[in-house]
């Protein structure tokens, strides 16, 4: 479909667009206020066109990749009167969003009268109102208990800030100062993108840029199809299980039926279990994004993540299932769960089609947040655990990474310094090392999770909340590899019997001197354990990564 363009101009425009989104992302990292953005980097910067096609995106959070086109379409549907200087916001998962904490800002890009593109910044807010701090509310039964819902709205109209609207938004979140600061950073970063695009238009002319973009999308499609066409054709099934919904419903199934023919792939998730009454449901856009994320992991890492690369992929869902919740259902956990399980089901299905590319399962997210009073300062504190990262899955290329993260973060979250945490919080990290025997056995072993013994040194009782999954089902092994060990968290309290923590709890009482024994999951193993080389086994033993040698021998 693309008109003729010389390949050099096309390459120049493509590289320039990636540097524009990279620069937007860099500005976000350096100027945002909240830790979830400037440390955990839970944001994305992108350019879409007015048809909702993703043109370029900075590599930040994989689970945002396929989600932004849906958000853009929702904005296009709502507003027919977009003007230069407008800034549009949205977060609602039933209006193109993924879950409420992810707020998205859009700046329209004009050339003269003509509106052509959007620069977009999506950022996870540290709080979005609702019943619990930070948006993760295991007790929510409907979305209104999860936070403030924002359909597409204009924050700026023709360059003028609607400050009454901003006041309303800021009033509904718990940390108005950070919220305002982060929002300013988002808008600033999207406008920086606008400025850079204007220069690109001036240099090449808007028509040439448009042709270059068409050609770029076609090229990414072509590259992807070249990869996919080497995979085996057929209909493949993959399944992954969520532990529970926190309300007594266990083993919730995600079922992926994948039809691969030629260079096309259809992922049909319709046979997945029905939706639940808790926050483990997924919104439609998030499910689309989770499947795109799985697909991105299987094709070549250097293919640009744009809509062209995703053209060979079609995703089918059925409203009312766990992967396509109906309007009003709670969904906050969805970017981690069931995203992790969706990815795993898709990768498992495609493992039969591209065995040399599929990797075993990566960890699940199991959050814990502690609130209490710091006896050294007399002030309240809230601490979120990012330590004890789970292990990554093994692949045909080798063992998995240890202490690296979940399917949806894959090494993108920095857990920071234990010394700094001990200075700032009444916490003692007695032990924080690899968790031996947690990686799934196999020709290539899964990465290890982490053992953390954390002593709480408050003088008054503190409370903890959890949100996550993966305490019953470990990341899957592949081709005979074993599953990684699931998460196992315990509260050990002198004078009280030790108690195993569930993944979806609120109001856990922690007494001074209590110890949280966190054992995070290892990654899945790849290939039959019998094929693991004796040298690798010896090294695992010498390094103390595997101690349970008898179990291995029994398997063989």
């Amino acid at each position, binding site marked *: 479909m693309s008109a003729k363009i010389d*390949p*050099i101009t096309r*390459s*120049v425009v*493509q*590289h*320039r667009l990636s*540097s524009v989104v990279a*620069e937007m992302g*860099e500005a976000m990292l*350096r*100027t945002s*206020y*909240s*830790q979830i953005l*400037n440390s955990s980097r839970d944001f994305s910067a992108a350019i879409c066109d007015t048809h909702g096609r993703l043109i370029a995106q900075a*590599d930040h959070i*994989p689970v945002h990749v396929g989600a932004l086109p849906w958000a853009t379409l929702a904005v296009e549907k709502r507003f027919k009167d977009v003007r230069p200087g407008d800034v549009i916001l949205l977060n609602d998962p039933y209006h193109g969003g993924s879950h409420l904490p992810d707020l998205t800002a859009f700046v329209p890009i004009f050339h003269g009268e003509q509106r052509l593109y959007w620069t977009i910044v999506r950022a996870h807010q540290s709080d979005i109102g609702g019943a619990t701090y930070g948006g993760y509310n295991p007790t929510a039964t409907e979305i209104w208990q999860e936070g403030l819902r924002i359909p597409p709205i204009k924050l700026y109209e023709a360059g003028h800030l609607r400050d009454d609207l901003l006041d309303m938004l800021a009033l509904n979140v718990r940390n108005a100062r*950070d919220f305002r600061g982060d929002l300013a950073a988002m808008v*600033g970063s999207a406008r920086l993108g606008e400025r850079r695009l204007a220069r690109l238009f001036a240099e090449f002319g808007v028509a040439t840029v448009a042709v270059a973009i068409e050609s770029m999308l076609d*090229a990414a499609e*072509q*590259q992807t199809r*070249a*990869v996919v066409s080497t995979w085996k054709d057929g209909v493949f099934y993959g399944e992954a299980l969520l532990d529970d919904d926190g309300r007594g419903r266990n083993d919730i199934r995600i079922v992926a039926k994948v039809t691969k023919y030629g260079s096309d792939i259809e992922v049909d998730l319709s046979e997945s279990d029905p939706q639940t009454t808790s926050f483990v449901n997924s919104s439609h856009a998030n499910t689309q994004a989770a499947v795109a994320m799985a697909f991105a*992991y299987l094709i070549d*890492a*250097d*293919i640009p993540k744009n809509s062209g690369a995703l053209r060979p992929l079609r995703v089918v869902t059925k409203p009312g299932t766990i992967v396509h919740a109906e309007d009003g259902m709670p969904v906050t956990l969805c970017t981690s769960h069931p995203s992790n399980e969706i990815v795993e089901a898709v990768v498992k299905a495609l493992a039969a089609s591209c065995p040399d590319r599929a*990797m075993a399962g990566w960890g699940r997210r199991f959050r814990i947040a502690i609130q209490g009073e710091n006896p050294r*300062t007399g002030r309240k504190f809230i601490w979120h655990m990012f330590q004890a*990262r789970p292990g990554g899955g093994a*692949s*045909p*290329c*080798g*063992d998995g*990474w*240890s*202490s*690296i*993260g979940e399917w949806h973060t*894959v*090494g*993108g979250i*920095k*857990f920071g*310094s*234990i*010394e700094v945490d*001990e*200075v700032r919080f009444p916490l003692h990290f*007695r*032990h*924080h*090392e*690899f968790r031996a025997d947690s990686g799934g056995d196999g020709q290539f072993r899964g990465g290890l999770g*982490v053992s953390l013994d954390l002593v709480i040194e408050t003088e008054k009782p503190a409370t903890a909340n959890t949100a996550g999954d993966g305490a019953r089902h470990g990341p899957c092994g592949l081709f005979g590899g074993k599953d990684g060990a699931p998460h196992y968290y315990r509260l050990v309290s002198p004078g009280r019997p030790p108690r195993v923590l569930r993944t979806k709890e609120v109001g856990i009482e922690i007494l001074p001197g209590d110890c949280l024994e966190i054992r995070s999951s290892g990654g899945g193993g790849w290939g039959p354990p019998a094929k693991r080389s004796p040298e690798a086994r010896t090294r695992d033993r010498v*390094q*103390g990564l595997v101690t349970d040698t008898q179990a291995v021998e029994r398997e063989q």
Partner: protein
Amino acid sequence: MRLTIGIDVGGTFTDLVAVDQAGWTVFAKSLSTPADQSIGVMAGLDELARRLKLTRAEMLARTERLIHGTTVATNALLERKGAKVALLTTQGHRDVIEMREGLKSNRYDLRSPPPEPLIPRELRFGIRERLRPDGSVLTPLDNDSLTRAIAAIRAAGVTSVAVCYLHAYRNPAHEIATVERLTRELPGVYVSRSSDVLPQIKEYERVSTTIVNAYVGPAVRLYLGNLEQRLMEAGFKGSLFIILSHGGIAPVEEAARLAAGTVLSGPAGGISGSRRCAELLGVPDLIPFDMGGTSTDISLIAGGRASLSVDGGLVADQRIALRSLDIVSIAAGGGSIARVDAGGILHVGPESAGAVPGPACYGNGGTSPTVTDANVVLGYLDAAAFMGGRRPLNRTAAETAVDGVAASLGLSRVEAAAGIYRLVNLKMADGIRLMTLRRGVDPRKFTLLSFGGAAGLHVVEVARELEIKRIIVPTAASVLSAWGMLTSDLRYEVSQTYFGASPGIVADEVRDLFGKLEQKATSRLRAWFDGPISVERSAEMRYGAQVYEIDVPLDDINWQSSSLADEIENRFHDRHEELYTYALRGQEIVFVNARVAAVGVVPKSDQGRRLAFAETACVPVTTRRAFFGEWREVPVYALDALAPGHVLDGPAIIEAETTTVVIHSGDRLAVNDLGWLDIQVR
């Protein structure tokens, strides 16, 4: 005649520069000898003496100071050929180095296996001891667990030990006691102690830096010891200094102690040279642009000062949190390989043909099309005259290689070559853009300083891409690093994490902390140097909720002021505003680390001799067919024949033995009174 000599050992060549007190400068080059760099250094000294018409012994006897940039530590790290190291650390925390804070760089590559840490887990020993965050002892150092670890270390044949305990930046007693036992019981083993190497909070940075130090330390100590020995035997009676990653110089014993501080010793000379160029030119804002065979180094001179790296960064995948010059390395250079992907998109790099086999035109068996091959096809490089004719290039091989890319793109040979040329320029421009904008600097207001073998071929196009209007090519462009070393001052840096008795900044505590650091730094420097010493102070600070500290210079502050705390806070707000466009006055500020540098100022020979203007016109030596949007017959000038006052317009090619400068139509080149090229970019 008294001499100062600068020596820069690079991957291929060892560059030497000698300057006498009158500012007379002589250059020499010898081939590097990677197995023992001191052999190439001695050969280079022979060549330098020959050019000075002296014997080596005569030359060395007259040499007061010899300043050396070494890549021994860098190579040990890159090639993973350092010492066999063990780690002693707090029990329960052996894996900090392998966890890497949970980060992984390529997000979409889920198949590449994890990197091997410098110390395998079986050589990381947990020692029973524990400090609280305030430095008090929670668990005393357990001698039995130390005894067991020492026995295991001895049995494993380890030659170097890193010691890093949690919170040792606050109280080094356990580490010191451990090191005492190690030195006593394992004589000859190199020991690196975290509270000595980097007494700062954040265990990943500290342990990683301490380990790198232990890993490269023995090799650096051995090499520098050998070199000093050889020089003394050859008649050298002056002082040997090593240039460190932060751009200052230090004696051999100090470089061997803090060996991790020498990993950027090589490029540091280039930055010192750039800073000196800024002084001589009276142009305070420069972007040094050093393009070589496999990579391009970019740094920043702003207001006449070289910027230091904010967070240390990674070298060879290892975190080294010592203060170092801020250098961004882009994987693009003359050897970068061009390829067309399955989608028909042209890419240049990051793969490089390196020195072996090298670009196709080198005729060493390389067949992949490289940037250098494109330059040959375009007529910018003269195949016959390369390296002064000592190493002619194979033009046919370059054409064949580029034809491959042309065929995949459906373009002509020259169109493909022009595409490769354009893309690599774009890549370098992108690197400069991110390097400058990330630091809040607008590159358009800067002058590009072009040096290194390949820079001249690309610099005008890179500048045009960035809307930079002016480029300088100094005479010493091909040996700028060695030349720059001669202009470096002595420098000793200390830092310490600040712990207030209460939150915020307490003036007396901060005054006291800086006082102690200053005392430590100046007394150490005094032992090497009897000239004037100046002191630089700075603080690493951030807003309460932030994670990135910024370095706030505290020079010219009134330390006796009763409002010292406010003044320091204001400096921080101002600096933050300057860097990131806003300040949050009224918000809580955290003062993390205090830093002090003692600087021993060495006298600079006058290298800025102004030359008389030429009375003759500049005349091209020949013309050549080259591609500037179309094939044109363009004039070729000999760099050596250009003199101050000469002006010429592009398109034109300026050639010297080791470098070529290409200017395009509309660009104007003038030779300034230093004899340097000053290019106005269209």
